[in-house]
């Protein structure tokens, strides 16, 4: 028997799936830190940021914390990241 089936998925064009270009080194790179406001995430980011600075020569920016874990990042924060950093790290530690 012949059947013609319809996909239940969205066309890929409707989904943001494209990855940003990868860095080849973090030395000298500007790194953003984004905490989602869950407990201990900021501490984890601080620790990673310190190591990136001291051991790998990265330029690490201060942690930015979302007001609530369930909320998207404010657009002005994204704009700042886009203008100032090459990579953003995020973490949860609860």
């Amino acid at each position: 028997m012949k059947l013609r089936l319809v996909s239940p998925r969205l066309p890929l064009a409707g989904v943001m799936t494209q990855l940003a270009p990868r860095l080849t080194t973090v030395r000298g790179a500007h790194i953003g830190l984004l905490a989602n406001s869950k407990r201990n995430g900021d501490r984890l980011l601080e620790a990673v940021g310190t190591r990136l600075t001291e051991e790998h020569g990265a330029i690490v920016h201060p942690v930015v914390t979302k007001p609530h874990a369930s909320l998207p990042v404010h657009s002005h924060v994204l704009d700042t990241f886009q203008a100032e950093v090459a990579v953003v790290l995020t973490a949860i530690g609860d």
Partner: protein
Amino acid sequence: MTPVGAELTDLDVSDVHAAIEWCYEQGWSDGLPVVPPETHVVERFAEAAPWAPTEILLTEPVRGIEVDGHTVVVNAVMAGCRPEYLSVIGAALRAMSHADFRLHIPASSTGGAAPVIVVNGPIRDAIGLNSGANLFGPGARANATIGRCVRLVLRNALGAIPGALDMATQGWFGKYSSCFGEREEASPWPPLHVRLGFAADESTVTVLATESAHNIHTCSGATPDMVLATAADVVRGLGSHSDGQSLVVIGPEHAGILAGAGINAEQLARFLYDSSHRTLADLRRSGRLEGPPQADDATRRRPRARVPEDFFVLVGGGDAGCSSAWFPSWSRGRGSVAITVSIDTGAVRASSPGPASAPGLGAP
């Protein structure tokens, strides 16, 4: 007509079973067999749908995803729905698109929430939705497939794949399907949607992301005090304590006992709110509250809600038996709140005093 751009696959298979297996191989299933979404069936559903194929029914802003009517129809076919269920599905998806529902979070959180769908009004009878015996269990096609369709949309259109986007530590069986009606005819109180401001003859869908139900069970000639004491003990449990909302589905027998003592739904919600308070010492001891101990921790208390109306009281279940159920919001804070949508008018009510967590409580 199947929309231009829809992804089609021509299969030459020996039987329907082979087509079902092929759907499994594509990752389209929730683990149960799906109805292969054959073009002619999809087109028949699309003609009956109360929306255009290009109409956006579900919006998830965090990842910028919009789900159109065509995609919902395909998933409804796969879930085993009948076309007359589509209006309920559409209302549920619109409710979940509300900003205060914050769909991305319950779809992805380790907390493992399911969107629990409560239906009120005449459409329950029109589509055969069960609100009586075994209303949370199997047996009614509308209950089983409406909730399943919503879950398939989350899986296939939003990508809520377990272990990928859906990071639930355990999840619960309601993530297969969670849809039931309020048994308004057996309730001594005005139904939920009327108390939320909708007309009695209006059909509505209320969606809340919850964890699994907690049993409120008391028998042996239960008195009003026994029912209240049991319910109070359940809603103050530390394992689910937060300032979120919850559904309280009172069995008809319990509802009759309470109403016989002159207790109405609002009074019951107030009682549960008052009873749900725990000391800050308890909350800190269990890790529900952050920060170092304070001198007054043993005397300061917090409820499992923000306001009494956060307990959404409704009636459901069979005539016999002494069970009620409490569905607490999965979130530790106020990450997602209940949204009600009128199937008839599209009117929306967000039952939301606000999304922010109480100070010191974890989020979401």
